[in-house]
């Protein structure tokens, strides 16, 4: 009972606050007569969202496709790198600072280089997504493996496990929970990654749509597109939660570890 109340509150309270913010925004724009080209009214944004739904939908498909592909590659590559880092501490020491540093290079500088080597197609957008998602995945998974109780590893060794089995039976499943935390962050921002990629060079997708709407002073469309980006980001987050439930059955119904996860 109490639990269900809590779940309801988890949805209702943010929704109520969101509604309050939107109403305030609507009032502000109406009351001060803020013109469309500066800030559109929420009501106008929703109207546009409905009007433009087919265009937004078809562009969303493109963006979601890029996102999923980029995320998939980031997960596979990130997990592999994390395992190599865990197995070779020297390598980890060497590469960790470079990973951090790589995160501070503005995407805008890298974009032309991506295009030069990957062309204008799908690849550079997928790479942008990958770059954004790679870091949280590697870090969370590597840290998760590092924080595994060494006694668990000793135990499995005492049962006669080799290096490979140590990873398959203890380190990877033991760090899965940490990996999902990183993945949730990565997935939430992955759509934005694809949009930035499209913004920089594209002929379709939400980023392209947004750029065009902006150049045409159609801020209602820009914001409607932002709304779609937000919804898709939340959906990606939900997807990861779902995957967690399916892949980690033992965590189901357990106490929440960090009560307010992203």
């Amino acid at each position, binding site marked *: 009972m109490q639990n269900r109340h809590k779940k309801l509150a988890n949805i209702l309270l943010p929704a109520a606050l969101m509604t309050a913010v939107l109403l305030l925004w609507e009032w502000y724009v109406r009351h001060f007569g803020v013109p469309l080209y500066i800030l559109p009214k929420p009501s106008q944004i929703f109207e546009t969202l409905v009007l433009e739904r087919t265009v937004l939908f078809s562009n969303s498909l493109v963006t979601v496709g890029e996102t999923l592909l980029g995320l998939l590659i980031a997960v596979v590559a990130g997990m592999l790198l994390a395992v190599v880092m865990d197995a070779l501490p020297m390598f980890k020491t060497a590469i960790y600072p470079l990973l951090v540093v790589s995160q501070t290079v503005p995407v805008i500088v890298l974009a032309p280089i991506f295009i030069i080597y990957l062309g204008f197609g799908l690849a550079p957008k997928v790479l942008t997504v990958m770059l954004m998602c790679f870091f949280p995945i590697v870090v969370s998974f590597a840290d998760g493996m590092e924080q595994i*109780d060494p*006694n668990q590893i*000793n*135990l499995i060794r*005492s*049962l006669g496990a080799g290096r490979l089995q140590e990873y398959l039976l203890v380190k990877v499943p*033991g760090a899965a929970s940490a990996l999902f935390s990183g993945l949730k962050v990565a997935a939430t921002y992955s759509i934005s990654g694809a949009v930035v990629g499209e913004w920089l060079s594209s002929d379709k997708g939400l980023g392209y749509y947004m750029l065009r709407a902006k150049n045409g002073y159609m801020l209602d469309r820009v914001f409607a597109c932002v709304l779609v980006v937000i919804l898709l980001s939340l959906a990606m987050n939900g997807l990861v939660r779902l995957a967690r439930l399916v892949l980690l059955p033992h965590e189901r119904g357990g106490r929440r570890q960090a009560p307010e996860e992203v």
Partner: protein
Amino acid sequence: MKLQTEDLAFSFEGRRIIDRLSFAVAEGEFVSILGPSGCGKSTLLNMLAGILPPESGRILVDGQEISSFSSHFAYMPQQDLLFPWKTILDNVCLYGRLHGTERALRLRAKESLPVFGLAGYGNSYPKELSGGMRQRAAFLRTALCEADVMLLDEPFGALDVITRGEMQDWLLGMRARLGRTTLLVTHDIEEAIYLSDRILILSGSPAHFQKEVRIEDRERNREWLFAQRARYKEIYYFLKGESDAH
């Protein structure tokens, strides 16, 4: 002698923890190792289990020297260390999983679950079990190893007095059934008296065996245990004297 060590020594970060440690355990014997916290009891078991390499000295099983992991030992660590992501059955069959005998082991494990008080819990996850049940599952995992020496590192350390007492009673009952050579590390003087044929007291820094207490009685129960005050006092004061000396 089933198990023998000769002049074992070990250091952590340049500090000698264990030095000139020699002892022998006969086939089927139950030996307890008592000693103050941090004296090196777990380190000793880890060396036997092949988790830590001895700095010097030799370990012999049935007169043959062994090094690194050997299938002679079944190791039960201080915590239950059940993997939370595996069911109880998968947890207790880990040994089979690692040695290609999973199918056969599962059959044996299923038979053993009721004996270990785990009937009907094979498909549960560890978090769904009580502390005592988890400990028994960890015990079953150890018992299912095809090994002839059991190494138990404070198996009941995390349990409360009553559950602990129950587990001790249970282990006492199992001893005959398992009939295996056992090395038990514990903090608890009473537990050592209750369960062992012989108690070795490890202390000093670097640690070595300082005292040995033999317990010949075969018929044991709580009543008998409550009568062992003299032994208890002897060990308590000895340990206290040792710890005051440092």
